[in-house]
């Protein structure tokens, strides 16, 4: 196999593994195509199985002929390997570097992973759009399924099936798609049964500098309003940024053309600003030398909690429009694949009890993140330790999970899942044996034939034996809207994700689930 070329030294004896708060382990280090394995070859001794794709960065050091490799993982873990022999160490290091940065998706572990568990329910079919739509169609006839994007021709980042207003035909949708960034015409994200109002999402309108308009676009979104009622457009950019976007052909809805809609700008940061925030935050968490004040400064300077507050505030605002103002909402930023999805999905957590159950939350991830075209492959390619500042990497999904955790902490009895569930999703989004988070959109996933060639995360996680670890024992269904506090005093650092490897193992916190908890077959 071609991996063999990358592995110059497959095995080194007498390697010492150091991890925070664990005693050092001496054993044999093995490199396989997808894993780094350290085994002490003794019974009852914990072994290390690390996916190469989980490795974010490595450093090497030498003292005499003793080499040390420091491995920084995408889940923020830092481990150290002492490797006797300079050549072996260099070989191992270069192999890890090569194997952790494989270009081709089809060489990734999910394509080689063979599950050792019996698949009771194929997760690839657990959340089909038709089934999800049934939940709405029983309550309203205003909406229909459209197959206009069947071949991914109208919008490459949308799924083949989307929900649109009943009165809008596919021809109109095609026209609207030309007026929206990336062809992302407004589609239904959520229908709130209580107020009968909806959340829609889209890409920015392509108004450009000369204020282009599109009658079909206006018709589409007005079709969602009742006579005489008004709606809100939440733009996840600041007015300034939205105005600047016009120069590049983008823009925002002009009041004159959308008189029934009121536009509110709720600025949420994107891309490298978020990535830098994460880098600074993790750096601050790892720095143990500074004193109390420096810690708060660094936490403040990372702006991580500011982003959390911004995102939650926007989501709360949307929920407030829907539930209190009884007005429908359209949400977009620029592409509509990042901050837009954070806001639409969090608003549903606040409004919809179902999305606070395990199945409902999985459905939400499937619908609002995977199907909606969040580019996981790009965003999660690197994590907090990356040096290459790629423009498209950003912890958008992690921020979303952190926001969910903040709400979970404020309403500890209203969620069927626990914190471990969120941590598990975070880890799998960055490195996994499952195909769920591969690719950037449904069309890419189709081309990769993930359904045929890889296992779905949901197949694994929805086994009763696995679910027990992710179930919140305090859960009592709460059918109310839950309004989180966004005051700075109420928002905390998500320690068990960001600091878990720096804190002593605590008695209340369950061990972090390892993505490799299941036995895996070696891929040679």
């Amino acid at each position: 196999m071609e991996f063999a070329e990358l592995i110059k030294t497959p095995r080194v004896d007498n390697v010492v593994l150091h991890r925070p708060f664990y005693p050092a382990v001496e054993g044999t280090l093995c490199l396989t195509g997808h894993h780094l394995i350290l085994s002490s070859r003794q019974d009852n001794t914990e072994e290390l199985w690390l996916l190469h794709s989980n490795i974010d960065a490595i450093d090497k050091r030498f003292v005499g002929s003793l080499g040390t490799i420091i491995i920084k993982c995408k889940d923020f873990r830092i481990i150290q390997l002492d490797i006797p022999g300079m050549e072996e160490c260099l070989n191992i290091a270069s192999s890890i570097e090569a194997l952790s940065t494989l270009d081709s998706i089809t060489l990734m572990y999910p394509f080689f992973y063979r599950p050792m568990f019996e698949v009771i329910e194929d997760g690839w079919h657990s959340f089909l759009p038709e089934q999800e739509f049934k939940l709405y169609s029983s309550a309203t006839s205003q909406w229909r399924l459209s197959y206009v994007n069947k071949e991914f021709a109208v919008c490459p980042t949308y799924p083949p099936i989307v929900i649109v207003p009943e009165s809008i035909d596919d021809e109109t949708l095609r026209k609207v798609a030309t007026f929206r960034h990336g062809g992302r015409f407004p589609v239904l994200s959520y229908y709130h049964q209580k107020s009968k109002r909806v959340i829609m999402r889209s890409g920015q309108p392509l108004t450009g500098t000369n204020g282009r308009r599109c009658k079909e676009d206006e018709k589409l979104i007005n079709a969602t309003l009742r006579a005489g009622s008004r709606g809100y457009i939440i733009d996840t950019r600041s007015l300034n940024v939205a105005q600047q976007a016009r120069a590049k052909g983008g823009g925002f809805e002009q009041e004159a053309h959308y008189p029934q809609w009121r536009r509110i700008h709720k600025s949420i940061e994107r891309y490298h600003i978020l990535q830098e925030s994460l880098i600074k935050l993790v750096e601050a968490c790892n720095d143990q030398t500074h004193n109390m004040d420096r810690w708060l400064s660094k936490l403040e300077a990372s702006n991580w909690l500011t982003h959390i507050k911004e995102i939650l505030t926007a989501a709360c605002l949307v929920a407030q429009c829907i539930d209190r103002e009884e007005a429908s909402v359209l949400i977009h930023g620029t592409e509509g694949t990042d901050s837009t999805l954070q806001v639409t999905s969090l608003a549903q957590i606040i409004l919809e009890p179902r999305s606070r159950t395990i199945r409902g939350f999985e459905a939400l991830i499937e619908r609002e993140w995977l199907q909606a075209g969040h580019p996981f492959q790009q965003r999660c390619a690197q994590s907090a330790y990356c040096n290459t500042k790629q423009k498209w990497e950003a912890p958008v999904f992690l921020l979303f999970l952190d926001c969910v955790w903040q709400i979970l902490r404020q309403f500890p009895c209203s969620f069927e899942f626990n914190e471990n569930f969120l941590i598990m999703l975070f880890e799998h989004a960055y490195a996994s044996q499952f195909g769920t988070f591969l690719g950037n959109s449904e069309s890419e996933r189709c081309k990769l034939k993930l359904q045929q060639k890889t296992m779905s995360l949901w197949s694994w996680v929805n086994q009763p034996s696995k679910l027990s670890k992710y179930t919140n024992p305090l859960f009592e269904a709460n059918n109310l809207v839950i309004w989180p506090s966004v005051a700075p005093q109420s928002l905390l650092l998500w320690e068990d994700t960001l600091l878990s490897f720096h804190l002593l193992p605590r008695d209340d916190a369950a061990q972090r689930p390892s993505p490799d908890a299941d036995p895996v077959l070696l891929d040679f």
Partner: protein
Amino acid sequence: MEHIRTPKVENVRLVDRVSPKKAALGTLYLTATHVIFVENSPDTRKETWILHSQISTIEKQATTATGCPLLIRCKNFQIIQLIIPQERDCHDVYISLIRLARPVKYEELYCFSFNPMLDKEEREQGWVLINLSEEYKRMGLPNNYWQLSDVNREYRVCDSYPTELYVPKSATAHIIVGSSKFRSRRRFPVLSYYYKDNHASICRSSQPLSGFSARCLEDEQMLQAIRKANPGSDFVYVVDTRPKLNAMANRAAGKGYENEDNYSNIKFQFIGIENIHVMRNSLQKMLEVCELKSPSMSDFLWGLENSGWLRHIKAIMDAGIFIAKAVSEEGASVLVHCSDGWDRTAQVCSVASLLLDPHYRTLKGFMVLIEKDWISFGHKFNHRYGNLDGDPKEISPVIDQFIECVWQLMEQFPCAFEFNERFLIHIQHHIYSCQFGNFLCNSQKERRELKIQERTYSLWAHLWKNRADYLNPLFRADHSQTQGTLHLPTTPCNFMYKFWSGMYNRFEKGMQPRQSVTDYLMAVKEETQQLEEELEALEERLEKIQKVQLNCTKVKCKQSEPSKHSGFSTSDNSIANTPQDYSGNLKSFPSRSPSQGDEDSALILTQDNLKSSDPDLSANSDQESGVEDLSCRSPSGGEHAPSEDSGKDRDSDEAVFLTA
């Protein structure tokens, strides 16, 4: 009464601090002990009670078209904003409160009029609930090394110390008296905690009057005696909890710190905890941050850092950890002092004891700890917490900091403490409330002279009676954490220390988690217990019926009566909290502001809640009654929980559940 210029003002508005546009109209009453606001709204008639002794500052703000605003800040971190229509009335209320909030003699304090309807015997029993003689016995004293000394009988040597003191056996009265003359306020070294396992001890004193070169043979002998009382170690740590600079400055005033050359076998150590003035300012700065109207994350974090509060908390913890380690790991005895040995010394000794001894992490043990290290050793409660009108420069949140240290530890070790956060909050409240006599005065001597035990009631008995409210459901006596010393990381992490919004923003209930895991678990526990009892009763009954059935085949059993599960059945709209002001932008639409969800105006106290044992713990009492989270405990499960608008009959729902 003569200080009340106007006992009643009508048409006063109580401003909701979260959403200032919401204000409740009502009547304001001034009584000898409380400020009471009663809402006009006939449905609720909500009452807000504020004890005069809780009032920290009163601020009269500029009159506006709507009236004259009066801002009352309380020592338990409640903030009340009233708008009084007439400037004159406002002025009268202001002048009255200024006087009422600053009593000049002890007899004016609430505890002398507070009557919980207990007879004399009950009151006396309350005062002996916490018994320090018993506590020293529990530590294993007296023994071969330590003895009870009567040197301070009738407070002859030191008037801020208690009469009952443990000193090394080899310390003669001559040594003690000699040493006391060489120590500030004659607070000579005495035992605070004895660690049975290895004979090491924590002793406390005030600073030595060493100046630049003075020495005292008896004081040196005293330290020698402490060392000898611990045969396992050949030295004693002397921990000066002040910053070195402060200690050096004291030398110029004839005070200072121990010179290692003069004392044989001591290891001297500074641990820089700032003085009461720095701490007072730090709290002030932090409270200003808490009070900010919709601050940004940066405002908050920057303000928190700038206040230095968590740095000070960490300094106290670090000192406690140092001492606990010296005692448990090195087996060395430690003498702790600061300047007078009643503020930082009390903090540090009690933190160290808490880390070392699981007993202090129980309900009763914690009361004992406060009784010992704070009350008996002459922490100046009256001066520090401003119970009587006095020098504002003496006021400082010394015990508040200790209480926060305990909370920070509880966050780190959630199963190690028998009590919960509410216990700490209520103790803090009562340190300022003066409802009970425990924290009056500055020393045991003053309390005896005032005959506190004959004239007032003890908080400890009150807390003990209501201990069900204060239990930590996660506490397990057999848990590894519960035993022995609490082990913190070798390099204490900074992020361990968190802002305690449950204390400093506890009246902004919207900011707190809306469901309480503690309350939930306690309710489940209670439920389980009831069900078990029921099961037992039913099993007994079944047995009887089976016996009857032998005789008669047609027995109709209709015994199962729907039972009432306290705490589970009273669900109402519960956590129907309302959205906060997430954006100013929504204002231009005619707002359909919701009518329900007043729970987020934290300072409102409903009549119902007054039935709770503490009329003055206004905001806590609705926490106690669990108003906020009952729905989450409703037994009806998934689909049956009531939506905000549904008027479903709870009882029928419950019946469905029970029969299902």
